[in-house]
């Protein structure tokens, strides 16, 4: 069966060979030493028709418990938010998704302007002076931020809160392993009204004139909103930068890190209209204050004019990038996450400033309702005291793993088991409640948790 994606017919191919002046397609490959030429076909399945592929792929998806058929209370960095229909109708326009990186600006004004709008929205949300056109994910945005900071102030220690998403900390540790940058982790308060927030005494002790940057996440991995201002003041005392890992939805309600002293703001943009997609693709965003603009990693779109003076957009500050600077580039990134950034831009445009506030406040209302409902069952206990956004920690009477297994039987995707990442939070459960959940779903969760924990499965 000939592939329908290859238009040249046998006859046409023969004519082309004649033009080239050779007899067979094989001759085209004569530069490859004979001993390297495969003598047999690759050992891969025989080709499927579209129809057969559809059937087989649907069978694969049937083995999954997805959030369209199950109620999702799992977050931990990836969130099940409402996605307006209009979003995918824009992102499925071929002029966008089948285009390349806009090297030829004159025929790429569409994606360039959209990226300029994205940069503006991220800068607005984070309260920073400029943003780039995206990085792979929140984790990679964080390691890029740390590398930038250490090169900027020529120091080689970073102080990282343990309440940062463990997935990010793992990536940070492995990518920085050979960089000469030392990571100092600081703990969080386990008791008192600040419990769950970064331990400021430990932070102060960890700081020195070697500290390049302090890295804080807010809301942190436990959903708790941190006092960025206090940490920023401490960082400034030793002339270190503050890197804030932030959540874009929460910034509809909470003060922008740029207004609280952050020098770099990074985070995961998946909640802005991007499906969970089993964890990828995601959307790393990266925003900085003015002095750091020319040190940013990745693509940046700038405004300019054409030869007739009309406004237009181009990729700019390219002298930072790998295709120009090679080993001296600010980063090795080439391909980014432009389509996910477009998704976020369309999502934010649809939501508007009021809609974003409403999403964020419904996340608060519904997570508070869920928290109280769960505590009222007497089957889970309180862990932290500080107020949270969208996500909270509780300790169920039975182990989270077992609880989740039981909940799945009722088509509920339960929370995240904190035991593996935080030995001090053994048996604790991180539950996310977005604006997508309704009262009935939350009531069902509380009811099932109660029954399961009391043995009445």
């Amino acid at each position, binding site marked *: 069966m000939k*592939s329908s*994606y*290859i*238009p040249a017919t046998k006859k046409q191919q023969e004519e*082309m060979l004649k033009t080239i002046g050779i007899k067979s397609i094989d*001759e*085209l490959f004569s530069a*490859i030493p004979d001993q*390297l030429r495969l003598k047999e076909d*690759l050992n*891969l399945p025989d080709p499927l028709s579209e129809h057969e592929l*559809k059937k087989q792929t649907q069978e694969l*998806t049937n083995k*999954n418990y*997805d959030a*369209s058929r199950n109620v999702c209370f799992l977050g931990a960095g990836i969130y*099940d938010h409402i996605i307006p229909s209009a979003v995918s109708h824009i992102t499925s326009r071929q*002029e966008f998704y*089948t*285009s390349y*990186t806009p*090297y030829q600006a*004159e025929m790429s004004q569409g*994606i360039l302007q959209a990226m300029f709008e994205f940069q503006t*929205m991220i800068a607005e949300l984070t309260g920073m002076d400029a943003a780039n056109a*995206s990085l*792979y994910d929140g984790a990679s945005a964080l390691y890029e931020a740390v590398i930038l900071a250490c090169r900027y102030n020529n120091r080689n220690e970073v102080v990282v809160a343990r309440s940062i998403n463990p*997935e990010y900390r793992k*990536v940070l540790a*492995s990518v920085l392993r050979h*960089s000469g940058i030392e990571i100092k982790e600081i703990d969080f308060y386990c008791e008192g009204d600040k419990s769950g927030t970064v331990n400021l005494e430990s932070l102060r002790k960890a700081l020195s004139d070697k500290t390049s940057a302090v890295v804080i996440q807010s809301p942190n991995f436990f959903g708790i909103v941190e006092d960025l201002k206090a940490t920023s003041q401490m960082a400034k005392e030793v002339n270190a930068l503050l890197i804030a890992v932030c959540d874009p939805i929460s910034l509809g309600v909470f*003060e922008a890190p740029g207004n609280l002293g952050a020098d770099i703001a990074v985070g995961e943009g998946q909640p802005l209209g991007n499906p*969970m*997609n*089993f*964890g*990828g*693709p995601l959307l790393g965003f990266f925003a900085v204050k003015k002095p750091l603009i020319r040190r940013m990693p990745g693509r940046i779109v*700038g405004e*300019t004019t*054409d030869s*007739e003076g009309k406004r237009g957009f*181009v990729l700019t500050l390219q002298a930072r990038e*790998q*295709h120009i*600077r090679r*080993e001296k580039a600010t*980063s090795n990134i080439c*391909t*980014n*996450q432009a*389509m996910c950034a477009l998704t976020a831009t369309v999502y934010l445009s649809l*939501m*508007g400033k009021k809609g974003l506030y*409403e999403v964020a406040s419904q996340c608060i*209302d519904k997570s508070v309702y869920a928290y109280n409902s769960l505590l009222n069952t007497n089957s889970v206990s309180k862990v932290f005291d500080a*107020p949270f956004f969208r996500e909270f920690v509780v300790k169920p009477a039975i182990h989270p793993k077992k609880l989740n297994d039981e909940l799945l039987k009722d088509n509920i*995707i339960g929370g995240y088991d904190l035991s593996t990442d935080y030995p001090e939070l053994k048996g604790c459960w991180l539950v996310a409640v977005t*604006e997508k959940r309704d*009262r009935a779903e939350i009531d069902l969760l509380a009811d099932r948790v109660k029954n399961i924990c009391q043995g009445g499965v």
Partner: protein
Amino acid sequence: MRDERLIFEKSVEGRIGYSLPISDVPKVNINSLFDGNLLRENSPEIPEVSEVDVIRHYTKLSQRNFGVDSGFYPLGSCTMKYNPKINEDMASLDGFTQMHPLQGPESSQGCLELLYRMDRYLSEILGMEKVTLQPAAGAQGEMTGLMIIKAYHTSRNDHKRVKIIVPDSSHGTNPASAALVGFEVVHIPSDERGCVDINALKETLDDTVAGLMLTNPNTLGLFEEDILEISRMVHECGGLLYYDGANMNAIMGIARPGDMGFDIAHVNLHKTFSTPHGGGGPGSGPIGVAKELVPFLPVPVVEKQDDCYVLDYDRPLSIGKVKSFYGNFSVIVRAFSYIMTMGPQGLKEASQTAVLNANYIRKKLEDLYEIPYNRTCMHEFVLSAVRQAKNGATALDIAKSLIDRGYHPPTIYFPLIVKEAMMVEPTETESPETLDQFIEAMRELAKLAEEDPESLKKAPRKAHVTRLDEVKAARTPVLRWSK
């Protein structure tokens, strides 16, 4: 109607673009729950527009963009092949898009099976032992591969290997990735045939070399004929070989990096395996490794135990994680669909036709343009507009003139070792008729460059903007809209 305002400039206070469900739980008083200085003082300038406004705005923007579905896109090194529509449909199934990465193997067997099978298929195509799908793009694959090279030497207590060798024709990501992982970068020249200069390589090789990064076929579109000798030399000095798979579209089912002696190889699913480039991304850059490097792969590794798929984190020699979760899953779904619909013969036919198409264009342009290394090429070739430039029309002018003729220009000014370079990669999904039309356009432009070079300097005329001032953009950066 021409309306080129930004979305912010269309904002009207009070307008909404989406109606959320009305909350059915008690309202929390945010001001009393949170300390006042944690709360936002001024709301962000997110536009207030209706759904129709949004759709019209971004539809208009899309009309000012050019994709593979719009027309021919012979952008060298980028493999702008057609993106089959069934792949999009498969990636948008709820059973994939609505999966949370942390729900555990029990409830995500379908996703894990797909990842496992992709590991097996790509391992076969690359001639490698095992593949990780975690890297988000080619450059992150390079970084991951170099981290593995470092871990390998370190595990042998061989700490003096601090250098990575790259040819002067290599992609910029190669040296940039090596620097990111803390290696010293050594560039070696190409010889007069456009391939690795074996003598220069010999002089560079010693016990401080950690590895060599190579694209094969290289960025001139030429197969490195001495590859077996190169790999023998690098291995003999104790180094490892890294394969930059950007040009894998030339050799699928014909030859394999693993058989050439490469120890690590990445592939760009957004090039070779037909997933869309998305205006810059997302891509996916899985890497395959030889048997002795499997223990160093990033965690988790998807394994099959009996009839179940599991995530294996217990791998003491692993380099750790390079990205959140398991990679760009929905991109991987598209590539999976591609492999499943192409089959082994289809993939081979794709590479054969890609190479045939490139040679056809090369042959039909060789009389009017300089082709510095003019012999049978692989899936792409590099021509030089030096002749035209002498007369006043540069590669840039020719590129901009192609825009007016409805083509996306080839890659220009790369590789750096060719003056006035234009790198042409037609891919297999273009018909001979399209190739002929492009050839005709290139021939016309060569003639114009001779007769009226000035006219090329004014291009493009038919695009939505005329030539843009890049110097101004960089000198006084305006990177965001302000009220």
